[in-house]
């Protein structure tokens, strides 16, 4: 299971404030904590800073890499900020988040992926908008996979995001994504599937419960990467447990190792 730690995002107030005062130590500490909690990648998103996004991206990437050795997920729709982040990423291969099926965005991002040999998140939206049905998602997914692999990107480097929408405004928002995951996996067994979970619970109370339930359901359908808060111990517990229950954790190695490190177990943490 691939976990992308989501906390370094300037839409979160503590991050925005630390960026404003160029507090590299705070950024480093959030990076370290997420890595220690089991993140495979760290997301870096500063797209809320409109005018200086590329400059802030470079600053964040440099400082995160001084603190941790895991690769980064450069998260921006803006090609200039993507270039700034991805060109500096030197801890393993970065994940570019994201390309879409939209003509202009695809054309602007593709050369960067190739130049820096990056992995890529492909959002299943195109010029026709946000997909509603599983079939819409499959259509955009197919198009993205074909265009990316035709351009020379390895299918194993593609992480498709089926685009979660809010259950509060559409009863079938969850089930369409679950069906889409199955259809995409059937057609492209080697492609990865990734998502953030919070969209699904927008507008409803106790959002964490819905996010957790949907992580478990999507994992059972074939999702193998999540953008989430690795410091959320309940979520991480469900993640390791689900992985083991799906037969993806030989000898329950990850489940037990995370248990010993106290990543989800309350008693263990209190003893520390």
């Amino acid at each position, binding site marked *: 299971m691939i976990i992308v730690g989501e906390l370094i995002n300037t839409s979160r107030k503590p991050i925005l404030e630390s960026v404003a005062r160029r507090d590299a130590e705070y950024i480093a500490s959030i990076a370290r904590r997420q890595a220690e909690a089991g993140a495979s990648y760290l997301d870096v998103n500063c797209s809320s800073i409109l005018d200086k996004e590329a400059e802030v991206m470079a600053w964040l990437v440099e400082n995160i890499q001084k603190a941790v050795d895991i690769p980064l997920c450069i998260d921006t729709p803006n090609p200039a900020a993507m270039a700034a982040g991805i060109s500096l990423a030197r801890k393993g291969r970065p994940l570019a988040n994201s390309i879409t099926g939209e003509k202009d965005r695809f054309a602007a991002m593709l050369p960067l992926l190739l130049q820096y040999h990056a992995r890529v998140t492909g959002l299943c939206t195109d010029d026709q908008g946000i997909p509603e049905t599983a079939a819409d998602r499959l259509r955009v997914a197919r198009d993205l996979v074909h265009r990316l692999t035709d351009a020379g990107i390895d299918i194993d480097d593609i992480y498709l995001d089926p685009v979660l929408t809010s259950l*509060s*405004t559409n009863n079938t928002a969850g089930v369409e994504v679950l069906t889409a995951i199955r259809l995409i996996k059937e057609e492209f067994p080697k492609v990865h599937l990734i998502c953030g979970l919070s969209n699904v619970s927008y507008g409803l109370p106790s959002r964490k419960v819905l996010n957790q339930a949907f992580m478990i359901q999507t994992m059972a359908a074939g999702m193998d990467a999540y953008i989430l808060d690795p410091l959320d111990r309940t979520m991480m517990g469900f993640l390791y447990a689900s992985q083991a229950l799906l037969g993806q954790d030989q000898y329950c190695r990850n489940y037990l190792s995370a248990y010993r490190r106290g990543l989800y177990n309350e008693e263990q943490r209190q003893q520390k």
Partner: protein
Amino acid sequence: MASYEELQQGVITADEGKVEDLVRQLLAAGNNPLDIIARGLTAGMAIVGQKMKTGEMFIPEVLASAHVMAKGMDILKPLVGDKLSSIYIGKVVFGTVQGDIHNIGKKIVSMLLESGGFVVIDIGVDVPAAKFIEAVKREQPDILALSALLTTTIPRMKEVIQALSSANLRDRVRVMVGGAPVTQSFADSIGADGYAPDAVLALERAKQLLD
């Protein structure tokens, strides 16, 4: 006997059968269709909006209430004809700016505006500035509402406001802006007249702008 209070309750609890029955009963008892709309259906929706604001109700329930209200309107609309406009408090032209295809936030705000007595002309998503200008000329709304959900598209809002000025329409319409990345200070910086952080407050702000 059926009452407006009961009809309001039917809207709040999103009881479709009850609302349709009560509308028919109220009509049979000789009530004015416009009164049934204003004092029953719209008044019920206004309470729903308040309950959403206080956290007692949630978006799916608001959608269910709006659906039921629409069922009631289906019965009443043919009876009131063009007199319907007499109960509207104002007209809003609403669109999501160019480059942005988000629709749901706009739909929820539209629904609450309609429940609050506005007539809403939804001109869609990914709307270029020129199309906003055309719609303002054609519809002559009280308010032009702009939605954007992306940090990369909110600068388009400023362009729409500039286009209004260039077309000499800026003083003919109030401009409201909203969407996740929009803030009050951003709204001020681009010269918008109104901003609200959520759908319920958007209705309140829209009413204030009419004064």
